[in-house]
């Protein structure tokens, strides 16, 4: 039923599409109203310019100034960076953050992968749905609320955790009053809430592994865990890369849990990088130093992301 002109329009549109790559034909926008796309984009572009791009630039610039909001800012060169790097609290907090990332991410990914493999194998359908929902559930809660009730659960005298341990004869653990105990609680609470995200990613990755590979492995005599070591892990490596990049980036920014659970203490034992940004800016009004710490944290995040994608070229197996 299509007329000649319609066909011409469509052909033209299709040609436009193939040369532009990702786009679809929207020629009218270009020919008659060249300003139209900018009307659509304005709220996002203006908003992001004001609330994201400008602050990024300002944040870098501010790192070279001393400013307490009250008096005029003064240029101090690299002084903020020098002070921050020598500050024992800042150094401790970065060390804490790195240790936290290593342990929490390893636990999170290990737990998520193990549970994802178990859920995806033979299981009654309703149980699979139940377990998936259960592991996903903590993601919808607020980290602050979770930390509130977890603080009670880990209370040394009255907490449920120590009560459970006492049932098997383990004496009360001073969870929130010792450096080691506090670090353990922050890690456990964080992993409790976040492993479900990696779990979701692994479920998606596992579902895309063709079953033939497992059949071939079975024919070759691979069983049980060997099957997973030699088939699942290599085929899952693209997912593992994405999951680990996202887990590391998120863990580097940990704030809510240590803030509510321990306020960084005892001493500086659970203070994290974002906590010192918060404290130097909004408690000590050293905005320049806070920005310097922020710039360092961003550089670390970018370096880790770049390193992971470089490593992936060597170790990730793409089908």
């Amino acid at each position, binding site marked *: 039923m299509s007329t000649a002109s319609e066909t011409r*329009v469509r052909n033209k549109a299709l040609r436009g599409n193939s040369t532009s790559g990702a786009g679809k034909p929207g020629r009218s926008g270009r020919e008659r109203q060249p300003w139209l796309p900018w009307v659509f984009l304005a709220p996002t572009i203006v908003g992001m310019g004001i609330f994201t791009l400008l602050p990024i630039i300002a944040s870098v610039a501010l790192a070279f100034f001393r400013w307490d909001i009250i008096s005029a800012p003064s240029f101090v060169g690299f002084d903020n960076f020098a002070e921050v790097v020598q500050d024992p609290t800042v150094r401790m907090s970065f060390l804490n953050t790195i240790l936290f990332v290593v342990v929490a991410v390893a636990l999170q990914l290990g737990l998520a992968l193990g549970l994802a493999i178990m859920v995806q194998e033979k299981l009654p359908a309703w149980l699979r749905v139940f377990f998936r929902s259960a592991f996903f559930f903590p993601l919808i809660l607020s980290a602050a609320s979770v930390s509130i009730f977890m603080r009670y659960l880990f209370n040394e005298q009255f907490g449920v955790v120590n009560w459970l341990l006492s049932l098997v004869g383990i004496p009360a653990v001073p969870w929130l009053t010792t450096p080691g105990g506090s670090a353990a609680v922050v890690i456990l609470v964080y992993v409790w809430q976040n492993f479900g995200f990696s779990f979701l990613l692994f479920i998606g990755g596992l579902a895309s592994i063709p079953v033939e590979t497992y059949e071939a492995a079975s024919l070759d005599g691979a069983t049980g865990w060997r099957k997973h070591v030699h088939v699942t892990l290599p085929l899952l490596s693209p997912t593992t890369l994405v999951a680990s990049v996202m887990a590391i980036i998120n863990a580097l920014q940990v704030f809510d849990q240590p803030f509510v659970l321990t306020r960084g203490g005892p001493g500086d034992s659970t203070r994290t990088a974002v906590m010192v940004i918060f404290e130097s800016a909004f408690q000590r009004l050293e905005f320049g130093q806070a920005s310097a710490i922020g710039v360092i944290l961003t550089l670390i995040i970018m370096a880790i992301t770049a390193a992971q994608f470089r490593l992936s070229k060597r170790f990730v197996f793409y089908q």
Partner: protein
Amino acid sequence: MTTTIKRTAAERVVVHRRKFDWSVAGRIVLLSLAAVLVLGPVLWTLSTSLRPPAESFQLPPSFLPLNPDFVSYGQVFKQLNIVGLVLNSALVTGLIAVGQMITAALAGYAFANLRFRGRNALFSIVLATMMVPAQVTIVPVFMLIRGVGLSDTLMALILPAIPTAFGTFLMRQYFLGLPADLAEAAAIDGASPWRTFRSVYAPLAMPGLSIVGILAFNFHWNEFFRPLIMTISEENFTLPLGLVSLQGNLGTGSISVVLAGVVLSMIPALVVFMFGQRALRDGLTAGTGK
């Protein structure tokens, strides 16, 4: 490999039906243990909030609310301006969600369906901003908000959160997935580009928009860091901030009251979980190459 249809992990069952039945039982035990560890603390929270305040620290703990007692819920309304907190949280979260849906739909549509100079470069910039953590830009954002006289207002929380790189990315993907013929048909019928968007594409994009909305709701309802910085007076606190300050005020006095507040704050998240779990899962894993 290329000619056979890929079967998913779920269908793997058939292969091992006879051999590994014992291992199924073992797996169910391990998975159940994990589920108990995940759900146990939440059940304890619910159950303890339903104990009389005097018994809240009593051991053995209670995991099932057999004799529910609602005294703590009455207390939480007395000790905390919970109605105000809920209204603040609802207003902030609601306006951010609606604002993100509108701006992301517009920008996503432009990046997907309209053609203009610098489109790809601009889209790359939008994506790149996702890499910079919000905690790093918070100082300049705080100063900007202060500079325009919005500090310690709900607007300080709402405005900066409306432009969304992730939502724009999500909506662009969604619009790219809709058939291109619709735009042509609409153009032939004489519809303006705005009409085409408003009456043809936007209604079809509702599922994608609901993902943006649900993600925004879940994130900002639970948000703690920005409200902690941007609000000073208690009448501008949001729920998580109010609850943390309640715990701080009470020390370890009557935990059932604090937990009653925690349970109340979870209700909207639970509703989202029950009705929007699918959308939430899709949104969280979008863009990870799933």
